[in-house]
């Protein structure tokens, strides 16, 4: 039987209201004068303050013209004599644009316009008898507004824009007031989150209010009656009660780089700060939070006059620096020392410029947070941690808390806030209501935090958001709201709150699991340079003790460059092509700077504070081996801790140690290889056991189509489709000498070639696999998998300063969601008396499934960068079966030796801080002490006796005590200071 759906075709009452609301908005300006003298010069930004211009001079810019170019910046100028009709009036500049434009009038920064705001109040910034206005504007085309949740922004995106005209105008505040009223009420009326009865009431009464206006008369008679009606009938109605208590925190998230280069963030930041300062001029009660000392530094460097203004607003408590760090870094991949330096450089800047230590860490957008973070924060003056993603992005489990205590790996605790909703909202009642409804700690956590403000050059809070906020208290249906600073919120609701629940573990984000692997070369450089910086600082410190100058500025510049590139859309790989190029250029620059700092010497220096006993590849053009394209030789350095010395290459028993037949036999193993380099049997002669139970060292190529979050995500369905690898060259012996036997195979998949070089050693239990890859795929995930003959329910992963044990089963949704996790140098599956560790030189993503280790090697994503990961890759990992568990086997030390190449430097240090890892040694920021950072990586406690008293420091290098004995607890990171001069002499 045919079914005819009844569709209403006549106008609904709410459509009639919306139509008239649109008519009302047309009357916001009551006088407008087009500025017809504008001229434009198109350009492209090439550095933070440099531009390439398309023409030698300006051209006229007339309404209807096309303006902006791909990756374009435009400079616009113009002059206008103030029309008589505007003299003495409150005067505005109006320009509707999809770009982000900063506006100067008569030499003063008056504000900015962008897709989220179209007018700037001029009058307060003009001297009294101003007759002429000279406009200078700089715009960056916002072809990819990040606020994809805002449909108005989406509709105008694109590289080439049509200029809609610029105007001087006066505003009809009576109209504007009613527009804000109706904006507020419409949002509630159209939101399912509020009571149906109240929404029906609003629809009816808004219509009645608009009935009072005669829209056929340009003067809008009845306007004041309509406003009066809204006040008396709608706002005064309190029959409908809402509930909740929501703190409204103004914030603008700013990605340093993402769909734009970091050079553009300089102006994005200026615009954001300036617009907030101008709002503060008009709304003294307005408070705004802004993160990342890097953004303050760039403002100070390039726009000092705005920075001076900013300082006054900070002193007044309106503008609030938050987030103690240099930038908002990824918090999975960076090493512990990098995270410490984020705090050190961030906090020192805030102290120096604003006289304050920021007591919160503000990372709304990062992709999960390492378990080592609470300790680092706590020791860097930070009591509070704020990060949004776990509540709103988790794809499997609902993170159970919003206001809680986060307990770190070492037992340190910080107060934590994971706000229930997104960090970019526009402060609409429905968003606030949604926040309250999603809030899970209603009975224990006090207020819930709702951040508002556009991000990423959307320039934060708008006049509309503040005007709406002024009206919230008039509506009984809304949750109670309070606009306060971040510090006020955190202290009021979290500090000393005895009811807070506790989360003891990493803050794993159940999304963006691909960022551990995407853009593999960035990860490789980052790993290399983190250790190279460590090396450079230690060597420089020891040379300084011998009388040399410590290159403090040079080292700090390198560190800051490293930290900048650890930003959460740079190192994770979620950015466009030019951002990648910038990062690589930065890494190359750092590498060369550090080479200069490290210099050279006669002998090799062991920067590790334990003897180097692992078989090591020493680069030497006369060597008889090749590794990663470089000649050298393998030997055990036997270098004492923190000492330099000669490396004597031991003489082996020539070709006697390795027998190659169907089975390859070494002093440690009997190995059966397959042609593709996988291992079908690895029998341990020392431990009398087989390590293989399935695919082992098996390279696998999977389909990797996670959808629109291509660079970010790996979905669990990647396993559903696997692609075969063709053996172009079966495994065969290519090199054999005193120390190493190398077997080589070449595999092909799609358009890619994968060369594997497998090394067996005479003096090492490790089996190294070098990978030389020409990678030309799309939507593929390359993994190497190891089915280990090990019965365990826990995989152990290095966190850079300690380790984490993760379940390898899939019993509950929590384990199922952690199918891909982040680790650092090594991961391990062990029984009590033995296991297998995989040590890597630049990989971070890994999955466990019962007895399987699945190490992620390469991805091939197309968004945001269609060229991502294409090209050459070179990386290694070491398969290391061992006796006992990972800690007893000392795998962390082996992994450090594997990752830290020996360099030549004729320095040494008497105190070797036995028992803890020397994570860093540097000159203190004030130049008065040697700072030594020691980390306990094995989960032990103990006592270290030092030859003399040292200063006990926090991670900001503040002196907190003095002792010659260091007691340490599991996974503790200690910082001590050794004064350069005897204090009694001072």
């Amino acid at each position: 039987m045919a079914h005819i759906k009844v569709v209403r075709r006549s106008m609904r009452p709410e459509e009639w209201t919306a139509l008239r609301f649109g008519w009302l908005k047309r009357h916001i300006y009551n006088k407008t004068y087009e500025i017809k003298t504008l001229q434009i010069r198109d350009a492209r930004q090439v550095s933070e303050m440099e531009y390439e211009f398309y023409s030698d001079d300006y051209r006229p810019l007339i309404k209807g013209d096309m303006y902006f170019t791909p990756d374009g910046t435009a400079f616009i100028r113009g002059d206008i004599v103030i029309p008589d009709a505007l003299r003495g009036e409150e005067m505005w500049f109006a320009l509707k644009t999809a770009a982000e434009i900063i506006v100067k009038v008569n030499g003063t920064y008056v504000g900015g316009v962008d897709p989220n705001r179209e007018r700037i109040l001029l009058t307060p910034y003009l001297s009294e008898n101003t007759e002429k206005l000279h406009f200078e504007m700089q715009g960056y085309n916002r072809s990819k507004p990040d606020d994809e949740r805002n449909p108005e922004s989406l509709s105008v995106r694109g590289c080439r824009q049509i200029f809609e005209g610029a105007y001087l105008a006066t505003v009809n505040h009576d109209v504007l007031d009613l527009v804000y009223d109706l904006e507020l009420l419409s949002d509630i009326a159209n939101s399912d989150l509020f009571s149906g009865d109240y929404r029906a009431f609003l629809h009816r009464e808004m219509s009645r209010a608009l009935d009072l206006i005669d829209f056929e008369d340009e003067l809008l008679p009845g306007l004041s009656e309509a406003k009066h009606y809204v006040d008396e009938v709608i706002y005064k109605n309190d029959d409908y009660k809402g509930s909740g208590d929501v703190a409204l925190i103004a914030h603008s998230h700013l990605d340093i780089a993402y769909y734009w280069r970091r050079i553009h963030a300089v102006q994005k930041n200026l615009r954001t700060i300036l617009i907030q300062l101008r709002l503060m001029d008009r709304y003294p009660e307005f408070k705004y939070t802004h993160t990342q000392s890097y953004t303050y530094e760039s403002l100070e460097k390039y726009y000092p006059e705005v920075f001076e203004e900013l300082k006054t607003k900070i002193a007044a408590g309106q503008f609030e620096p938050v987030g103690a760090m240099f930038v908002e870094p990824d918090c999975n991949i960076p090493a512990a020392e990098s995270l410490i330096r984020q705090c050190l450089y961030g906090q020192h800047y805030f102290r120096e410029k604003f006289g304050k230590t920021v007591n919160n860490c503000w990372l709304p957008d990062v992709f999960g947070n390492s378990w080592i973070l609470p300790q680092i924060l706590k020791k860097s003056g930070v009591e509070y941690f704020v990060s949004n993603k776990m509540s709103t992005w988790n794809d499997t489990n609902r993170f159970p808390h919003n206001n809680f205590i986060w307990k770190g790996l070492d037992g340190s605790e910080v107060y934590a806030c994971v706000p229930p909703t997104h960090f970019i909202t526009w402060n609409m009642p429905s968003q606030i209501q949604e926040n309250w409804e999603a809030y899970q700690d209603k009975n224990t956590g006090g207020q819930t935090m709702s951040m508002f403000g556009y991000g990423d050059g959307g320039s934060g809070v708008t006049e509309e958001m503040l005007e709406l906020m002024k009206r919230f208290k008039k509506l009984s249906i809304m949750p109670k709201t309070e606009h306060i600073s971040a510090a006020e919120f955190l202290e009021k609701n979290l500090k000393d709150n005895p009811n807070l629940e506790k989360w003891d573990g990493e803050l794993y984000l159940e999304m963006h699991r691909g960022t551990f692997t995407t853009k593999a070369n960035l990860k490789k450089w980052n790993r290399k340079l983190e250790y190279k910086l460590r090396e450079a600082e230690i060597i420089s410190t020891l040379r300084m003790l011998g009388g040399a100058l410590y290159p403090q500025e040079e080292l700090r510049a390198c560190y800051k460059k490293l930290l900048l590139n650890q930003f959460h859309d740079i190192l994770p790989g979620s950015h466009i092509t030019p951002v990648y190029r910038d990062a690589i250029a930065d890494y190359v620059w750092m590498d060369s700077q550090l080479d200069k700092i490290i210099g050279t010497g006669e002998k090799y220096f062991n920067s590790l504070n334990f003897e180097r006993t692992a078989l090591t590849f020493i680069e030497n053009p006369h060597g008889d081996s090749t590794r990663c394209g470089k000649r050298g030789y393998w030997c055990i350095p036997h270098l004492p801790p923190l000492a330099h010395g000669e490396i004597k290459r031991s003489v082996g028993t020539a070709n006697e140690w390795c027998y190659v037949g169907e089975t390859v036999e070494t002093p440690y193993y009997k190995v059966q290889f397959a042609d593709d380099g996988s291992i079908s049997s690895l029998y341990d002669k020392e431990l009398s056991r087989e390590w293989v139970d399935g695919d082992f060292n098996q390279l696998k190529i999977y389909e990797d189509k996670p959808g629109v979050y291509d660079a970010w995500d790996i979905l669990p369905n990647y396993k559903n489709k696997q692609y075969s690898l063709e053996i172009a060259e079966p495994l065969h012996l290519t090199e054999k000498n005193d120390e190493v036997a190398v077997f080589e195979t070449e595999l092909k998949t799609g358009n890619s070639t994968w060369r594997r070089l497998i090394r067996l050693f005479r003096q090492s239990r490790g089996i190294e696999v070098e990978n030389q890859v020409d990678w030309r795929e799309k939507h593929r995930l390359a993994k190497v998998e190891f089915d280990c003959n090990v019965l365990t329910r826990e995989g152990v992963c290095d966190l850079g300063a300690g380790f984490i044990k993760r379940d390898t089963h899939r019993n509950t949704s929590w384990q199922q969601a952690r199918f891909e996790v982040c680790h650092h140098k090594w991961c391990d599956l062990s029984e009590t008396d033995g296991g297998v560790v995989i040590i890597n030189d630049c990989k971070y993503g890994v999955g466990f499934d019962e007895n399987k280790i699945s190490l992620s090697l390469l991805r091939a994503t197309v968004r945001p960068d269609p060229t991502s990961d294409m090209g050459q890759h070179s990386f290694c990992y070491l398969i290391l079966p061992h006796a006992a568990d990972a800690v007893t086997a000392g795998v962390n030390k082996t992994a450090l030796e594997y990752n830290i190449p020996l360099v030549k430097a004729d320095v040494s240090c008497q105190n070797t801080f036995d028992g803890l890892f020397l994570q860093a040694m540097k000159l203190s920021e004030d130049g008065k002490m040697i700072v030594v950072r020691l980390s306990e990586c094995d989960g032990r406690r103990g006592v270290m006796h030092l030859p003399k008293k040292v200063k006990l420091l926090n991670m900001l290098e503040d002196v907190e005590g003095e002792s010659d004995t260091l007691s340490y607890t599991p996974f503790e990171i200690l910082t001590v200071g050794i004064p350069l001069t005897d204090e009694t002499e001072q």
Partner: protein
Amino acid sequence: MEDYINTTIRPKIQGDGGEVTFQSLEEDVLTLIFQGECSKCLILDRCTAWIAQEIEKDLGKRVHVCAIRKKPFFWDT
């Protein structure tokens, strides 16, 4: 022309999250493949007109740009 597209136009397009590659030049018809953000841009015709304008300015050659969009699977609806 291919070199011009690669060295002059492409970096600018990439700066906006797009991607352009040279496909062919036959008589005055320049065929370009657009990926990334360009592949779903609602106003790509403005950009191709600008590319033609730049080519005329820099190379003195008038072309008609034919745009082929290659959308990734997740936008191909």
